[in-house]
């Protein structure tokens, strides 16, 4: 019984797999050290599309794993993004950056289902 309970807890932990969002400077340093591209997400309070990405899309295991192994995820509020000069055309805005912080293509604006977002990340990764 105890073993089953532990298994159930473990399965919950696996299903709820997650990645850690980095702060800006910390994320840039990590990306440089790991030579990984950056997924930069700009959010704001009360943004339902941001909540969808956080609560639904970023709970999909395949997407979570892909981000965790291939990208350094950085999250900024719209105010933090403004102080750094990032252009925001609505939230969420996603920017994809090389490990040196330079942008890869144009940003993405709005939410996307996990499958579509994963495809975009795969395209970016394969284009590097």
């Amino acid at each position: 019984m105890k073993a089953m309970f532990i298994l159930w807890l473990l399965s919950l932990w696996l299903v709820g797999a997650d990645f850690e969002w980095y702060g800006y400077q910390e994320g840039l340093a990590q990306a440089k050290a790991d030579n990984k591209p950056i997924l930069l997400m700009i959010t704001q309070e009360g943004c339902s599309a941001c909540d969808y990405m956080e609560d639904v899309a970023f709970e999909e295991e395949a997407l979570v794993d892909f981000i965790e192994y291939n990208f350094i995820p950085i999250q900024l509020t719209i105010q933090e993004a403004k102080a750094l000069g990032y252009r925001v055309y609505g939230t969420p805005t996603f920017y994809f950056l090389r490990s040196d912080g330079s942008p890869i293509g144009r940003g993405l604006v709005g939410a996307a289902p996990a499958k579509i977002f994963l495809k975009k990340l795969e395209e970016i990764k394969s284009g590097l």
Partner: protein
Amino acid sequence: MDFRALAIDATGRRGIALSKGKLSLLDSIPQDHEGPWLLPPLVDLGVGVLDGRLSQRSLRELARKARQGGVGTILLRPDLSPPLNDEIHLEFIKSTHVQVELYPAILATRGEGGLSEIATLAKLGARAIFVESRTDSSLLAPIFQYAQMLQLPLFVWIDGSRRRGVMNEGEVAFQLGLRGRSKVDEYGEVARIVEYGDYYGVPVIIGGISTARSLELIAQSPHCFAQLSIHHLLKSDRAALGYNTLAKLDPPLRDQEEQEALLEALGAGKVDLLTALHTPASYTRKDLSFDEAAYGIDSIASYLPLAYTKLVLPGHISMERLLQLASATPAKLIGLERGTIAPEAPGPYLLFDPRSLHQGEGLYRGEEIYGTIEYLEDWSWETS
């Protein structure tokens, strides 16, 4: 030329060495360093040419002066003669090779009151859409929609009733008997544009502002960026005493109290980007009565030394902050990565000697300015 130097950029300070043409980052900052600093060049948005006349000659002259003042990248303002609102003139800018990076902004409107071919011009490499704040709402709304669709920033110039007043409305204007421009006209225009920016969720660079109240309004918006000229931080309308037309700027220099409030706002982080407000007018257009003289200032050739001497040396901001406001942020707003010194960052870099002293010119005649600029030539990063 081999050296060990202090490299400063928007992200911090580090030691750097040049040996046999190879540049490498050091593990530590050189102590008691007295040599020149290695800096990334500045980026200035909304720069004008002599008398607003677009020609190869005026662009070359602009580039020469910009390089002299430590500016490596320019977004040209498009309200020139001829205006940058068609393919021919955009191609002309792109095909003109000068000593600095030159990018065009496009004028959103045409003379007859319609819109330019914004989408076509954007494809040809325009980096921003330029519009005056007093543009009719029937045009302004689609311009914001274009900016959103094309993911281009809008550069909105606040037109604070230039047609009615020639300087700040206040005691000095009264003494000189000149028509003044009210601050409240500016607040009203800024508030309107901030509402549009937030409604459409489009990044808006708001230029042509001269008051702390405008900075306050913009600071509350997550989408709008306040661009302030260094002259409005350094001078007040008293510079116009004696009918000094060198102090006739658009927007006008405000009173001393306002100047102090702007400096305070700068320290409080309410300015998002700085500019030299380079809008030179020839002697024949400046040497007239104050009423008739042209607006504008020839200032890009001293931008970095002036900003260093008047903003960094007195402690209003750090050198790193100056490079964020005058290089990294303006670059990012037009989709470029500048303002950092790193093996991945594109050069050129400049050597700034902060001890070298010279006399100011124009509006700053008779004032001591620190800093001379040389460019680092023939180098590459050391590869390990």
